[in-house]
């Protein structure tokens, strides 16, 4: 009865309503429209970054030659001073107008509001006359030792009369201080590069015959190897320590396909030519051909690669100590392109190339692998001007299988890595 049922229905063509194709046609059209959502995400991220930068440039940090003014002689306490300073000098050109390089500082009525709102701190330091060289120090204590013996420098909150002074120096906190502190907000850009190690997990996603066996054979022949990634991110840190950043990333996961074929027969042919000369000068040539079958093992090794372009969206929190900083980062990484190449067993357990060396018909992997979860803890130490260096051990988990939906096996990854990089503060 089983065979009868099977034979009868195997080639039987049921009537298909016209609406079936219309539905498929509509779905295919919709899919084509939605094929590039991640490009939209990237575009939106770039627009937001641009708007954020313009906002920062025009509202938070206006041009340096904007007019500023000091109105009275109020002197603040020393307690609010940061640990170190950057100093700029302004030479008097005419009454109440000072220049530093190409930048012009006009001591006008607007100084109070500008210095208090356009810089990420409330206090600044000012010196005049012969003390300028001594002002150029990077120690708060040294500056205030000077203050005890000289007229300048003085710590001024926002208001000081500068009229009549030939030269002034205005100092503000070194970035080292407010990178560590949570009291200010600012934009940054960072470049990261790191080494990764991928951990592969194969699962049976379709219960085709021999799928279990296929998975076992795959697992025995594929090994993770050192991988790497690099990214360029831009972001913003809020005074509370919360931060957000996004950008573009290249990541490459590497694996090795290694197969030892035992009992491989290699045919070796040996040709021997002997020439024997007779007394009369003639000679005889004797050719001997020997063919031997050599039994041995053959090793196949191929480096497999997943080359990916990603858009990370990371949020984090920065904790700062007296001379170090820690950032806890987490977020989602959107894969926008994945190019796979290498060699694995196909479903019939034959080593088969895919990607560049493949024939185009064995393409087990997706061209986009979707979302992955990122988590990392960053340890920050040194500062060089506006630049900061750090290391960040991290973990990345891919939610989706790298293999296509109808491939018998699912193939997921968890990646452990360590990243180092540098961050530049605007």
């Amino acid at each position, binding site marked *: 009865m*089983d065979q009868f049922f099977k034979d009868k229905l195997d*080639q039987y063509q049921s009537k298909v309503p016209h609406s079936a*194709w219309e539905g*498929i046609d509509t779905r295919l059209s919709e899919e084509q429209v939605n094929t590039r959502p991640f490009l939209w995400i990237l575009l939106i991220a770039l627009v937001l970054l641009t708007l954020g930068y313009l906002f920062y440039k025009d509202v938070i940090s206006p041009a340096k030659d904007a007019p500023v003014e000091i109105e009275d002689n109020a002197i603040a306490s020393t307690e609010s001073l940061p640990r170190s300073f950057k100093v700029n000098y302004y030479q008097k050109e005419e009454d109440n107008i000072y220049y530093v390089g190409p930048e012009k500082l006009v001591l006008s009525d607007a100084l109070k509001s500008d210095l208090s709102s356009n810089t990420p701190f409330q206090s600044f330091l000012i010196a005049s006359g012969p003390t300028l060289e001594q002002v150029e120090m990077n120690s708060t204590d040294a500056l205030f030792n000077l203050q005890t013996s000289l007229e300048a420098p003085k710590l001024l909150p926002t208001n000081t009369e500068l009229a009549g002074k030939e030269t002034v120096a205005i100092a503000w906190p070194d970035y080292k201080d407010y990178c560590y502190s949570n009291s200010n907000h600012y934009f940054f850009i960072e470049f990261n590069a790191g080494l990764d190690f991928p951990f592969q997990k194969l699962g049976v996603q379709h*219960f085709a015959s021999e799928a279990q066996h296929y998975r076992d054979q795959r697992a025995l022949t594929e090994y993770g190897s050192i991988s790497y990634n690099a990214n360029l991110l831009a972001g913003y840190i809020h005074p509370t320590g919360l931060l957000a950043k996004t950008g573009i990333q290249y990541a490459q996961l590497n694996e090795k396909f290694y197969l030892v074929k035992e009992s491989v027969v290699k045919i070796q042919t040996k040709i021997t030519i002997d020439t024997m000369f007779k007394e009369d000068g003639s000679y005889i040539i004797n050719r001997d051909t020997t063919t031997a079958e050599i039994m041995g093992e053959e090793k196949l090794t191929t480096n497999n690669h997943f080359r990916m372009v990603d858009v990370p969206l990371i949020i984090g929190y920065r904790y700062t100590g007296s001379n170090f900083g820690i950032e806890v980062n987490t977020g989602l990484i959107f894969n926008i392109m994945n190019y796979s190449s290498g060699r694995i067993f196909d479903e019939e357990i034959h080593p088969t190339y895919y990607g560049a060396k493949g024939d185009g018909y064995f*393409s*087990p992997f997706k061209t986009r692998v979707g979302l992955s979860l990122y988590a990392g803890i960053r340890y920050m130490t040194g500062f060089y001007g506006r630049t900061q260096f750090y290391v960040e051990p991290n973990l990345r988990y891919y939610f989706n299988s790298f293999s*296509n939906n109808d491939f018998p096996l699912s193939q997921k990854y968890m990646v452990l890595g360590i990243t180092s990089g540098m961050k530049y503060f605007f």
Partner: protein
Amino acid sequence: MSDREIILGCLQKNRNYQKILFDKYSGILMTVCRRYFPEHELAEDALQEGFIRIFQSLQQFNFQGSFEGWLKKVVVNVALRKIQTERKVRDWADLSSAENKEFRCSAIDKLEEEDILTIIGSLPSGYRTVFNMYVMDGFSHKEIAGVLSITESTSRSQLVKARQMLQKMIIETKESD
């Protein structure tokens, strides 16, 4: 036009080739869907979902083995996922639906294809799914157990009962003639 030409055209996302593939194989694949879903609307849904999956994963086909067999395999997988989603295999002991059906055919060897589809469709959903998977689509009991989240022994007993019920229905049909 050969299957190879059609496949290459579909891989280029050419809608005309996709339509040709649909026209050529939709009848056979609809039969597969009807085996799992006697309700015509569900069968049509499965067919549409199956073709979408086929077009999405056509690059998987490596031109080794039967293309028709590969298409059926994709559609069967889609049907099984749909069954899992819609919980069609919920009640394994439900026999009531089989007793209310009518069959009009003279003998097993004279059963027409539509009669067979009707008889299979009359089985309770659990019996029908196991019978289809084991007899028609070549799954093992171990694989069936994995897909349907049941034990292997349950799968075997469902198959036995499905066969008994099919025989009974065919005999009753003979007697009524």
